[in-house]
C-alpha cells in the first residue's frame, strides 16, 4: 500500500525531480570544469549531455533518469510505514531525508557523465583522461549505481528515524535505554 502511494507521489514529482537532479549535477560538473563546457538538458526523463566544444552535428549522448531517482519511491514508502507519518516531526525528517537522497542522485548523475567523458567518447576520452581517472569515475558510477541506489533510501530512513525503528524492532531495549536516560537526568 505504502509502495503504491510512493509510486504515485514519485510519478507526480518526477518532472521536478528530474530537472532538479540535472540542475545540481550540471552545477557540480561545471564547478570543477575548465573551461565550463557541459550543459545537461533534461528531456523526457532523460538527460542530454551537451558540450559546447562538441563538433556541430555530432551525436548527443543521453542518460536515463528513471533508474537514477526511482529510489525516492522506496524512501517515501519506508517513511509512510512508520507510525504517525504526517506528524510535523516526521514530515521534517522526510524533508531532510529527501534532501540527502537528492544529493546522492545528483552525485550518481555526475559520475555517469564523468564516466561517459572518461570512457565513452573514443580517442578523445583516451587522450584527455588517465587510467586512474577512468577507474575512479567508473567505480564512483558503479558504487552509486548498484549498492548506492538500493541502500541509500534504507540508510537515510534508518539514520533519521533510528529511535522509531529501534522502538519497532527492539522495544524492550529501547524502553530500558529510555528509562536509564531518564533516571540519569533525574539524578543530575
Amino acid at each position, binding site marked *: 500500500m505504502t509502495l503504491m502511494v510512493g509510486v504515485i507521489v*514519485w510519478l507526480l514529482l518526477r518532472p521536478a525531480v528530474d530537472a532538479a537532479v540535472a540542475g545540481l549535477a550540471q552545477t557540480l560538473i561545471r564547478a570543477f570544469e575548465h573551461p565550463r563546457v557541459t550543459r545537461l538538458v533534461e528531456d523526457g526523463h532523460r538527460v542530454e549531455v551537451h558540450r559546447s566544444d562538441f563538433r556541430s552535428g555530432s551525436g548527443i549522448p543521453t542518460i536515463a533518469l*528513471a533508474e537514477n531517482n526511482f529510489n525516492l519511491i522506496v524512501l517515501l*514508502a519506508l517513511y509512510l510505514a512508520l507510525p504517525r507519518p504526517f506528524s510535523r516531526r516526521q514530515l521534517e525528517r522526510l524533508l531532510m531525508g529527501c534532501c540527502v537522497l537528492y544529493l546522492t542522485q545528483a552525485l550518481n548523475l555526475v559520475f555517469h557523465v564523468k564516466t561517459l567523458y572518461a570512457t565513452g567518447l573514443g580517442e578523445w576520452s583516451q587522450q584527455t583522461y588517465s587510467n586512474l581517472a577512468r577507474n575512479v569515475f567508473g567505480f564512483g558510477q558503479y558504487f552509486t549505481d548498484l549498492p548506492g541506489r*538500493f541502500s541509500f533510501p534504507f540508510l537515510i530512513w534508518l539514520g533519521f528515524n533510528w529511535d522509531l525503528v*529501534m522502538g*519497532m524492532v*527492539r522495544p524492550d*531495549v529501547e524502553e530500558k535505554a529510555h528509562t536509564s536516560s531518564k533516571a540519569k537526568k533525574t539524578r543530575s
Partner: protein
Amino acid sequence: MFSFFAPPSRRHVMTLHRIWDRPEARFLIVFVGFLGMSFTIVALNPVNDAIVLPYTAWIARVSGAALRVLGEPAAVTGCIVSSPRFAVTIYNGCNGLITSLILVAGVLAFPARWTAKLVGVVGGLVVIQILNLIRILTLFFIGIHFPNYFNNAHVYIWQSLIIIAGVALWVVWANWSAAGGEAPQ
C-alpha cells in the same frame, strides 16, 4: 612543524570513542564499510568471472526450469532466458546479489549475537532468492502479456519491492533477535 602524520591526540581518540559508542554511528560505519568492501570485491574481474557470472547463469537456469514447470517452453543460454514468446537477460543487478549483500550488511551491523546473525544471513539469503525468482517469473510473464509495461514493472515496481522486502526482512529479523533473547545485553 605541522605534520599530517602526527599521532592522534587523546582528545581525538576520545571523540572517535564517543562516535563509536553511539549505536546509530556504529551501525552506519559497519554497514557502509561492509558494503564498500563487498561491492569492491565483487567488482573485481577475477571475482566477477569466477563467482558472479556463474551465479547469475545458475539463477537463469533455475528461472528457466521454473518457467518450464509453469508451462512456458523456456531455454537458457548463459544468462539469457528465452521462449518463443519473450526473452530476458539476467544482469548483475537482477540476480538478487545486491539486495543480499545489503541485507547481510544490515544484519552484521546490527547489535545481536553471532548465532542470530548467522540465522539472519542464511534465512535472509534464502528468502531473497525466492523473492527474486518470483520477480523474474512475473517479469517474464509481464513481458509476454503486457510488453508495454515491462520496463515500468522492472524498474519502478519490482526494484522498489525487492528493496522494501529486504528492509522488511531486516526489521523482522532484528525484532526476532531481540524478542528471542538473542540480543546482547
